[in-house]
């Protein structure tokens, strides 16, 4: 605790405060602009940070990371375009809220949730630090495979009304993920001789097309419509929503932190688990997908508290848990520090300064976002005929800048048309992208554990893996039973 207070005095020096603000702003900006994620932004700013003091540089780069987590929410809510995977889930209820003229609610709930999540996980990082680091190492290929299966079972919760349509969506995501180089043998699958497909389909343009562009196509059907912001309490929660939303935020904070500890999970998993958890705990699960504030609050909280969790393996073991963290690790090394437990002894000012700056940064973001939420929400009632061209231009630039190639733009356009068709056919889009993200890891981990244990059964020798697989089976069985019950009752209703 002493270290943290000491860090706070470092974090609030004018210079550090200034760069923390810069980092948060840049992060928020790249979060808002689809195509440029925290990974690219951090990478681009690393050379600029070379002249700065190490602490200041790291503080700024961390600011970009969690600033982007905030920013990604805004486009998801307003124009149904997630800036990165962590925000895919936010679209599910955030966008319906915006369509009801309650974009302000979604943005505020997300801002508060992100703040609480960020603070709780930073506190946990400061207090628990090294003592939970070993937890991260328990997750080898078998355990990670089981975790991915568990995550996959959670996707069932997002399938919407029709089980069959959900399965169509799921298998489509699965087959998209198989395109490109086999992660183990290096064999090339379904690339049809196109070089750009060898590395697989890029997630960002796919996401932008399926969600954003398809939504534009829907909007274009009636250009004269304006989503009139309903005057009634457009940015406050209804009384009955208060309790579930608060609970979602608290649960999301702890969930995100613990998932962050596990290497290689990515921020989509805590968001996904949080959403499914809230939906199953809710008294009115039918409201999910139609604009339930807790469906925004839980995942948004979880993906922000994930950041604090993910810092632990980096600070204490020198293991980068996610691509952005890997770049942060590069920044540490460039400033002559090698992340690991010795860092707490050799450079305590840097570590504690950085941890404390995450508190400060979360406060900055909250102050920035509470008033901004109302301003952003106004964007939602821009007439379609003005909104659509602007969003299209931003999306095209985003798709290009993701990998600096026109191929990305092509991917986005094709995905947009597919997304539009799916919407017309009532096929849910979220499972496509989430399964797409999970499959790659899942396949790799499965093949690795088979190789390590010389067979499939070896996976079951790990208690963690066994537990997660049993959990996944229970989730699937549970939803199947619910599905059959619902079918029966709707049939009965039909008879009457």
């Amino acid at each position, binding site marked *: 605790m002493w270290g943290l207070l000491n860090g706070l005095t470092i974090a609030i020096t004018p210079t550090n405060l200034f760069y923390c603000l810069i980092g948060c702003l840049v992060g928020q900006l790249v979060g*808002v*602009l689809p195509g*440029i994620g925290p*990974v*690219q932004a*951090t990478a*681009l700013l*690393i*050379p600029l940070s070379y002249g700065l003091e190490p602490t200041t540089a790291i503080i700024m780069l961390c600011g970009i990371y969690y600033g982007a987590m905030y920013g990604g929410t805004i486009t998801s809510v307003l124009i149904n375009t997630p800036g990165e995977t962590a925000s895919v889930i936010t679209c599910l209820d955030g966008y319906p809220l915006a369509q009801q003229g309650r974009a302000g609610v979604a943005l505020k709930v997300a801002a508060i949730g992100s703040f609480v999540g960020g603070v709780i996980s930073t506190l946990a990082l400061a207090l628990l630090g090294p003592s939970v680091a070993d937890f*991260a*190492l328990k997750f*080898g290929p078998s355990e990670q495979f089981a975790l991915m299966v568990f995550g996959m079972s959670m996707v069932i919760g997002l399938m919407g009304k029709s089980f069959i349509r959900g399965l169509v969506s799921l298998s489509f995501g699965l087959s998209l993920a198989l395109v490109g*180089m086999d*992660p*183990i*043998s*290096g*064999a*090339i699958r379904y690339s049809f001789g196109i*070089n*750009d497909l*060898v*590395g697989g389909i*890029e997630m960002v343009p796919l996401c932008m097309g399926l969600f954003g562009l398809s939504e534009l196509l829907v909007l274009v059907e009636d250009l004269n419509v304006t989503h009139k912001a309903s005057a009634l309490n457009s940015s406050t929660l209804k009384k009955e929503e208060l309790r579930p939303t608060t609970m979602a935020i608290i649960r999301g904070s702890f969930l995100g932190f613990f998932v962050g500890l596990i290497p*290689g999970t990515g921020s989509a998993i805590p968001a996904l688990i949080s959403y499914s958890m809230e939906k199953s705990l809710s008294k009115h699960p039918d409201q999910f997908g139609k604009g339930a504030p807790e469906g925004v609050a839980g995942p948004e909280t979880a993906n922000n508290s994930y950041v604090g969790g993910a810092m632990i393996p980096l600070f204490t*073991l*020198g*293991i980068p848990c996610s*691509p952005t963290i*890997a*770049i942060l690790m*590069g920044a540490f*090394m*460039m400033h*002559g520090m090698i992340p*690991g*437990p*010795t860092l707490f002894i050799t450079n305590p000012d840097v570590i504690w300064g950085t941890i404390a700056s995450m508190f400060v940064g979360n406060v900055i973001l909250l102050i920035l976002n509470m008033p901004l939420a109302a301003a952003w929400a*106004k*964007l939602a*009632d*821009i*007439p379609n005929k*003005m*909104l659509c061209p602007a969003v299209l*231009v*931003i999306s095209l*630039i985003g798709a*290009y*800048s993701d*990998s*600096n*190639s026109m*191929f990305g733009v092509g991917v986005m356009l094709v995905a947009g048309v597919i997304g539009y068709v799916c919407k017309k056919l009532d096929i849910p889009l979220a499972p496509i992208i989430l399964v797409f993200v999970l499959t790659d890891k899942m396949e*790799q981990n499965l*093949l*690795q554990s088979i*190789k*390590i244990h*010389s067979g499939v059964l070896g996976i079951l020798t790990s208690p963690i893996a066994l537990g997660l697989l049993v959990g996944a089976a229970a989730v699937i069985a549970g939803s199947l039973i619910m599905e059959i019950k619902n079918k029966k009752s709707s049939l009965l209703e039909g008879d009457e």
Partner: protein
Amino acid sequence: MKTNITKFHLKLLVAIMVMALALGVCGIVSVAVADEASDFPGREVTIIVPYDAGGSSDMISRFIASGLGKALNCTVLVVNKPGGAGSVGMTFVRQSKADGYTICYISTDIMTQKVMNISDIVPEDFAFIGQVAEVPGALTVHVDSPFKTATEFIDYAKKNPGKLTVAVGAVGGAWHTTATVLEEGAGVKLNKVSFSGGGAAAVTPLMGKHVDAAVNGAGEVLSGVNAGSLKILGVMTEERMPSLPDVPTLKEQGVNVVFGGSGAYALPKDAPQPIVDKLSAALSKAVESDEFKDFITQRGMIIRYRNTADTKKAIAEQNEVFFNILSKIDK
């Protein structure tokens, strides 16, 4: 009232679009204009990095870009064109004008393109400017491992073929091939488990003791070694690395394996010789900068400057090793 709202929205929209454009423009390469070699460089030069921003290749290139810029007295941009194990970016440069304004970062991946059926790119498609860095391979275990030296490790592997699990990169990548070179050089059979996603991906399972050892870049295991949880049994260099003077080479322990990845720069094959020479001279100055030296040492790499002819020769030699190993693999 209505016009007021519209005006406010227009402003907001314009502001957002300007920001988007400003960020987008950073990545756009300007159209080529013909130049004479003597005027070179008459405008900004672009280094295409066929990998994601933030990786070692990208970082190396950003340091080199600033060094080249100083030596040539022009702006040198770095543009990432990731995808397909480097094939997307390399294809882009191969097809671009051979006027010296588009340079490609070339990694070990160039040697695996054809034999792994990734693309039809071969080293002969490029005119090499020079090599700047070498990423030495290393054999690393957990500190709790029963093996204290490379000799012990190899002896055990000889008696128990296929029993030791070793974390490596994807098949066809530099570290999988390095592990195969180790197997052949030492006459052993290992159970190689691929962890794609850069050499760092192989470190986590080793720290969690899910595998017995890892073969990857020495730089990748540095933080683990510093943390006291990993131990490098041997580096695959001719001599001990200056940044790791206490770590023995495999060679001095009787395992004659010298191998690693490389980082070089090249132009499309038809580039005029005077321009290649000019860039090569600038490159030799860029590797001398203190910033670059610090960076390379901290990342566990070695500065290995090779001129045009030596780079071509070194890549041709390594290409043959890769071809021999990879053509035997059952894909």
